[in-house]
């Protein structure tokens, strides 16, 4: 059964909420506000009872796959388990019921947590300072590029170019453009790493920064990273790390040792905070040395009297959002780090890499693996090679849904045709991985025996395959009342 829209459940006169009567002397509305400033029509909101609302949203939740219900093999998204204790802690009134403008002396607990979180991320990454403010990875990228731009303006160097590999996340070139930089794409070599000759050719005194994802979006470590770093640094550029794939490196490698000058973290990937159906996330950024002066205001500092927000930063690029960051998300990530601690963090990456290699080893017998070498935390299969009988990667993904698996990331990275990017994370068991492999093998057989079964999938969900072309052409982007005669 499809669930109607909340508007379609509306019946005049129903109420979902009771509010107290007005306990002050009521004034005539138009005496308080001139009529021209007042709303004339209805609000257009539905009228539903409390149980109506509950059933509606509970039923909708049942039409949604989450990590708590299904294995989510989405590459580059690190869909690991979200510990429940972190939810409880972040929901303590001492954390949720505090106003961003209340006296700083009255929020010492949260300021201390932010201060310590910065220290933890510094130790993990080898960076000198961290700003916890960016609301997402892309926001961290943009903020970083603004800082780099401000730095070069200060030292009066005209650098207008950002280098990104052809395997990069789309946010990299988009952030670069938004900052007024020109994006130049660096090619990958046949092993999936940066093509050093191409990089040398494109590196110049016009280049501000090379944005790298390590391991890259093929799940491969950049073996020539020190050479890459030398090429960039020799000519005065910065090396940026898109931290989306940090789950492979915790306690294994420090980004600073790779020559990284500036980077962002994705707390909603690496550090287990829930993705929330697409947000909120949190994308702290870290910097080495001279860039620290440009961090957005405020930073969290500590002196004899306690912790405080420091706005007095002469070179800061300024504010990049209201208030101080996605605090609730940061609290959950802090809990995760404290829970795992020194002993646990490295095990995260070890098991993430083990799980990925195990899956890859099993699946490459049935699907084409374009970059056939040991992977880090994820790997990329291609859905085109072999006799796939017109079955596309999209079809494989939709068929996986029938088996109760959220499919891998598809059609990314762009350098692999019909890509299937698989990241199991460390929180899945061998049994789950084996079940996933069985389903993939089953689908591979179906492609040979009954391709239409795959091409028509999904069959077992509340809805069949949705028509995206129709959606893009008709563009129904909100509910409207049916007028009489419609």
């Amino acid at each position, binding site marked *: 059964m499809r669930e109607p829209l909340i508007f379609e459940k509306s019946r005049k006169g129903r109420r979902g909420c009771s509010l107290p009567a007005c306990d002050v002397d009521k004034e005539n509305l138009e005496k308080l506000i001139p009529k021209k400033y007042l709303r004339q029509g209805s609000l257009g909101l539905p009228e539903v009872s409390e149980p109506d609302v509950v059933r509606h949203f509970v039923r909708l939740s049942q039409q949604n796959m989450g990590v708590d219900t299904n294995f989510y093999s989405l590459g580059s998204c690190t869909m690991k388990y979200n510990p429940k204790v972190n939810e409880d802690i972040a929901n303590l009134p001492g954390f949720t019921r505090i106003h961003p403008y209340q006296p700083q002396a009255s929020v010492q607990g949260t300021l201390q947590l932010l201060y310590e979180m910065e220290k933890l991320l510094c130790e993990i990454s080898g960076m000198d300072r961290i700003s916890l403010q960016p609301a997402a990875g892309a926001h961290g990228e943009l903020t970083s590029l603004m800082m780099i731009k401000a730095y070069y303006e200060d030292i009066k160097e005209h650098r207008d170019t950002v280098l990104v590999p052809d395997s990069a996340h789309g946010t990299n070139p988009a952030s670069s453009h938004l900052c007024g930089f020109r994006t130049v794409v660096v090619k990958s070599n046949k092993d999936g790493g940066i093509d050093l000759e191409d990089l040398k050719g494109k590196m110049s005194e016009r280049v501000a920064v090379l944005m790298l994802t390590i391991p890259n979006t093929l799940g491969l470590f950049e073996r020539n990273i020190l050479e890459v770093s030398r090429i960039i640094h020799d000519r005065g550029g910065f090396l940026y790390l898109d931290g989306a794939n940090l789950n492979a490196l915790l306690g294994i490698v420090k980004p600073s040792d790779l020559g990284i000058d500036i980077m962002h973290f994705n707390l909603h990937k690496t550090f287990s905070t829930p993705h*929330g159906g697409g947000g909120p996330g949190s994308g702290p950024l870290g910097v080495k040395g001279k860039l620290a002066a440009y961090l957005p205001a405020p930073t969290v500092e500590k002196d004899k009297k306690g912790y405080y927000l420091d706005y007095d930063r002469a070179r800061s690029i300024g504010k990049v959002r209201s208030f101080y960051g996605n605090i609730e998300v940061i609290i959950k990530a802090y809990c995760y780090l404290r829970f795992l601690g020194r002993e646990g963090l490295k095990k995260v990456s070890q098991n993430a890499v083990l799980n990925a290699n195990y899956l890859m080893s099993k699946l490459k017998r049935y699907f084409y693996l374009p970059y056939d070498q040991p992977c880090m935390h994820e790997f990329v299969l291609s859905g085109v090679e072999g006799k796939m009988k017109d079955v596309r990667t999209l079809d494989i993904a939709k068929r996986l849904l029938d088996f109760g698996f959220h499919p891998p990331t598809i059609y990314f990275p762009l350098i692999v045709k019909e890509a299937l990017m698989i990241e199991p994370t460390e929180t899945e068991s061998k049994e789950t991985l084996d079940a996933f492999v069985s389903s993939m093998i089953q689908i591979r057989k179906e492609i040979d025996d009954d391709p239409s079964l795959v091409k028509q999938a999904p069959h077992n969900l509340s809805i069949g395959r949705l028509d995206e072309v129709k959606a893009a052409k008709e563009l129904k982007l909100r509910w409207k009342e049916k007028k009489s005669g419609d």
Partner: protein
Amino acid sequence: MIPYIPNTEKDQKEMLKEIGARSIEDLFDSIPRNLRLKTDLNLPSSLSEMELVNELKGLSRKNAHLDEYVSFLGAGSYDHFIPSLVDHLSSRSEFYTSYTPYQAEASQGMLQTTYEYQSLICKLFQMDVCNASLYEGATALVEAAVLAHNVNHRKKVLVAKTLHPEYRQVLTTYINKTLGLSIVEIDYENGVTDLAKLEEKINKETACVVIQNPNFFGCLEKVNEIEEITHQTDSLYIVSLDPISLGLVIPPGEYNADIAVGEGQALGGKLNFGGPYLGIFTSKKDFLRKIPGRIVGETTDKKGRRGFVLTLQTREQHIRRERATSNICTNQALNALRATIYLSTLGEEGLAKVAHLCLQKSHYAAKRIYQIPGFELTFRSPFFKEFAVKCPVSSHKINKLLWDNKILGGFELGRFYPELENSLLFSITEKRTREEIDKLTLFLEDMV
């Protein structure tokens, strides 16, 4: 064993055997040995769940929170009533542990609620289109100004000084320092934008005029007059607003705003010391293909059943890359879900009632305060739920006294407006009772 990692030693051995590696260490062979850490990270030791809870509860107790203090503070972050349903339903882990709904068939719950969110906000704002949400109010406003510039390629942004000061700072960071557009601030008169000043500054170079309504001082701007002036030069009219106000204040669609944005935290969102919040973004349909962020659209499956998908994705970074309308990748889906549950629960009558309670109570409070000798209202323009009060003594001292008596006082306007030294901006939501307001006035009386 770590509870979040299921692999046992036996599992690991079997898996390594399948891979053909001798040890887990071997799996990292692609990383040059000299780059691998030789020692453990210098982090605190791991904690058990019990220890973690105890330690974090300890930290949370170092904060003084608003179940213990009565708050008269707003200024962009509001303590409104949140019905129980909001926490209960948004805590369904099928929702909060899901990813961006790229696989529509497995994400109908989140997609439909987001579609409902877009529909509810369009109704409330009376605007044509609404995206699936952005980070928070200030960056939503940045996106609006960037859109205006992309539409008309003009290079001057006029910003009302009555816009939230932090929003103005954020605009400066992106629009001025990064994009190189100029920002011109428009002064206020009696708490609202000075129309004469606006007319003086506006010209054919003006990309957009940015106002807030109700503005930072809580006052209602002359939205129709500003519209006329703005559109005379074909500049775009951008409004930032508090969605609660739309329970009774004229919505932006009715005064011909081109883009209307807002901080949606008040719609069932927690205070959370400032985040995560909810960036609402709406516009006229003319700009549909230029708006940032995700959008959900309605469609059908092969059997003709209604379903929902992300649509217009070609605007977005993962396809258009450097030419995307914005670099934004995530939205604040969970916060948008909270807003959707909130608006559904309150409904037509509930939201209007919340707005009316805010209005009546804030006017009651204002009346009580300006009756205290020495105190006066800083401005005499119509206001919604916030108002500024000029104090006869240091506003900081007043706040201190209030705090000592378990009251969180108003926002000290001198922090951002030197000319308003000793003015306090009070915010009165439906949660404040007559008794609490009377108590506040008693303490203020004590100050003179």
